[in-house]
């Protein structure tokens, strides 16, 4: 199998790497780039642990071959916060107590980020829908929804 050259922007940095063409975007991010916040929970697109933002949309990276992502812009949890400031969603997840085991957390925050970037003022139902592809076995979702509401309000300076 011949390697392919992958060019894409990851967390704002241009990347150019050779990799095996059968690699999923998930493997490329985790194994080739060491971005291990991207988790693998099911490998079949059902749990949302591998969620990343690709060209502004939340996608499950276990269902995307790396070749399909050439030329795109990808954001993982590592790319969300600045030097010493957290993204409002990251801070809100801490404050609302929305983190338990933390395995779903990267995907949850990214799904919520894609939502808030597209819709500044989602209501509870829209928030629930936006994370309905992200399974969490620990929290019962309540504090995750509260965290997203909190981040929404803080972003709007409410």
């Amino acid at each position, binding site marked *: 199998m011949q390697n392919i050259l992958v060019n894409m922007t990851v967390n704002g940095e241009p990347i150019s790497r050779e990799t095996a063409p059968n690699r999923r975007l998930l493997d490329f991010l985790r194994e080739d780039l060491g971005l*291990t916040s991207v*988790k693998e929970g099911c490998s*079949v697109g059902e749990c949302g642990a591998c969620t990343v933002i690709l060209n502004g949309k939340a996608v499950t990276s276990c269902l995307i071959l790396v070749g399909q992502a050439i030329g795109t812009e990808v954001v993982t949890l*590592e790319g969300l916060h600045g030097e010493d400031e957290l993204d409002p969603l990251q801070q809100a997840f801490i404050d609302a107590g929305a983190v338990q*085991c933390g395995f779903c957390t990267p995907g949850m925050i990214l799904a919520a980020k894609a939502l808030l970037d597209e819709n500044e003022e989602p209501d509870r139902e829209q928030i629930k829908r936006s994370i309905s592809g992200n*399974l969490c*076995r620990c929290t019962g979702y309540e504090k995750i929804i509260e965290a997203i509401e909190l981040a929404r309000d803080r972003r709007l300076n409410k």
Partner: protein
Amino acid sequence: MKKNVRNPEQTTATIDTSVRDSKVVTQPPQRKTVEPQEVPAQPQKSETLDRDFSVLGKNVNKKDAYEKVIGKTQFAGDMKRPNMLYGGVFRSKIPAGFIDHLDISKAAAIPGVACVLTYKDIPGLNQTGIIIKDEPILVENKIRRIGDAICLVAAETEELVEEALNAIEIEYDEIEAVLTIDRAAEADSPKIHGETNLHQSKHLFCGDVDAAFEQCDVIVEKTYSSGMKSHMFIEPDAGLAEYVNGILTIYVSTQNPHFDRGEVANMLAISHNKVNVIQAATGGGFGGKLDIGVQCHLGLLCYHTGRPIKMVRKREESTMVSSKRHPMTMHYKTGAKKDGTILAMKIHMTGDTGAYASYGPAVITRAVVHATGPYYVPNVDITAEFYYTNNPMSGAFRGFGVPQISIAHEGQMNALARELGMDPIDLRIKNAHRVGTILPTGQELTESVGFVETLEAAREKMNELFNDETYQPSAPNKKRGLGIGCMWYGIGNTGLPNPAGAFVEVLGDCSVNLLVGCADIGQGSTTVMAQICAEELGLNYEDINVTYAHTMVTPEGGATSASRQTFISGKATQNAAYMAKQTLMEVASDYLKVPAERLIFRERKIWDREDPDTKMTYPMLMMEMRRIGKLALGVGSYNPKTTYLSPKDMSGIPFEVYSYATAIVDLEVNVETYETEVKNVISVHDVGTAVNPQMVEAQIEGGVVMGIGFALFEDVILTRGRIKNLNFSDYIIPAAMDAPKIYPLIVESEGEAGPFGAKGVGEPALIPTIPACADAVENAVGIHFGNLPILYIDIAREMNRKR
């Protein structure tokens, strides 16, 4: 948050009405119980101000939250080492039989394959199991389930591991698989272990049930059942092993690191201190990461190759071989007087423990001890049998059998309320456990029984949210119902010693190193331990650094199971902190010229409670400590005050304290699609003292949603011992759209046993929602469902039958 501090006088005053007018038993049963086990001298109660806490009861940020939200937390699957191998397991594809022929030579010859191992490569004990060591680490000859581990492979890449697994050749001699407990019980069925398939049987009795039933005005008799469930933690099992300075070091997703250490060491026939198990961040457990998963396989591969090695299970493999919730059938006969006083219960339950014991003995014992529910029942006869089969291994799953039996004891209470035309909450209050209640085991409840308060708080919230006029279905094709469920839950292992320990050192700058064995699987024990330690020492939460679940460094913590860590490791932490504080108190006492018992330690200050101006800061105290050459060190342990249960009638003290809870579920059933939708859940929990109320709420909310999954959609589908729904695509767990509005309420009952009166909530959080869902469905559509889960097809079938 709502806090109800119970009024002990009021509740004890009402206790006896439920018993005294009964003719059958006029006195609570007198049972001889064994004395509690000897407990080493514990430090005295601390000198903190009574319930006026400076750190406890505060919603401090979880210690692990920051790393988790920035994506830095290392789960075992995220770890990498230079020169690292990957490991995989060759597993049986049949449920029962013998290995006729096994050929690993082709697999071993593949370039890049480091080794292929069989049971012959195990230098020590080829047996594992938390209670009964009946599971081989690698099968020698006999296969007992689909997924039994037969060979191990280590290779340079994951692809090569797959290739090697595919190159292993095997032929089986298949035999009849025992797939039901009825078949297991038959004399001529194949025996899975030893001479009988009966795994365990139990008999708990007190009073005289037959005579008592004669005295009853109403008798309710029903059968209930609960199917097999899968934990579906989001992180599949994973681990990495390597040698560090000659010590076999295993980083692993686990709830039970100290147990893991012993199992690995015994397998290799090396001393326990030559193995270091370090808990990696663990992506949920719920009981499914208590058994040995990858630990022994990693240890054996690392031992033979000398190289770092990682194993990450695929979701399907993880679901196939990790333990499952015991399927159980429960037959209940409950008798009561016209006024609702319960006189007798006769109960028979059976369970399928699958191919290996795992936590089966704990599940059956706990289920039997809790079978009456949180009600005083003077005449009780409970029998239980669990059988081995060739089905997947049943084991620990959040609640150890209590979620299953709660379906039955609550189903009975609701049926009884209907039969008597009584309000279901009034009926429960009439029979509720209170301080002074004697349990069927003979134990007397002496403190921290907040059950009635949970019922009253639930009723108050229900009346606030719903009233008769506005409580209507949201659409004409829907029916709506409210349901109630309650539970009680003993904290810690049932009638067994289960100690935990802690080490504390207060450093010169007033920061603290706290070492605890307790594994944090996301529920937040690390944060809880830090809060308890800070409160006891009079320091701030931020001063405490916690090292946990690292067997070379931390003392025994026991398993993170049985809702025991806040209570037991928390008490050990408090004891260790108190020991360090005793030195600090002596030094401060000399310095301030105040008797030690008058000193208050709080928020980094020390003062005389009778003269607050006589005071010093913590940094001054630590300076004084240094000047006179003293160290502030503490060692603590705690073992709950329980007794072994009598083999004859199970009398004794199974637990030192119990948590209580009540849930109200509001749901709708669509009468065209038969789908259910849970809209609101009130879940009230008596947790003793809430160390961190936000985290208690988080446990309750997570439990409520898992309870909805349990009651209304989760079910493992088996065909010939094979799980058909191994992944989230067909084993459906609740998603955000399924989550109702949840009202978590906290009741704080008073007690001395736990650290500052804290009990536990991890498993209780799940339980009451389950029977409450069943009751709500019944109230919505007027049909009783005793078999859970209640799927839309069940509702469709029963409604069509009724039409």
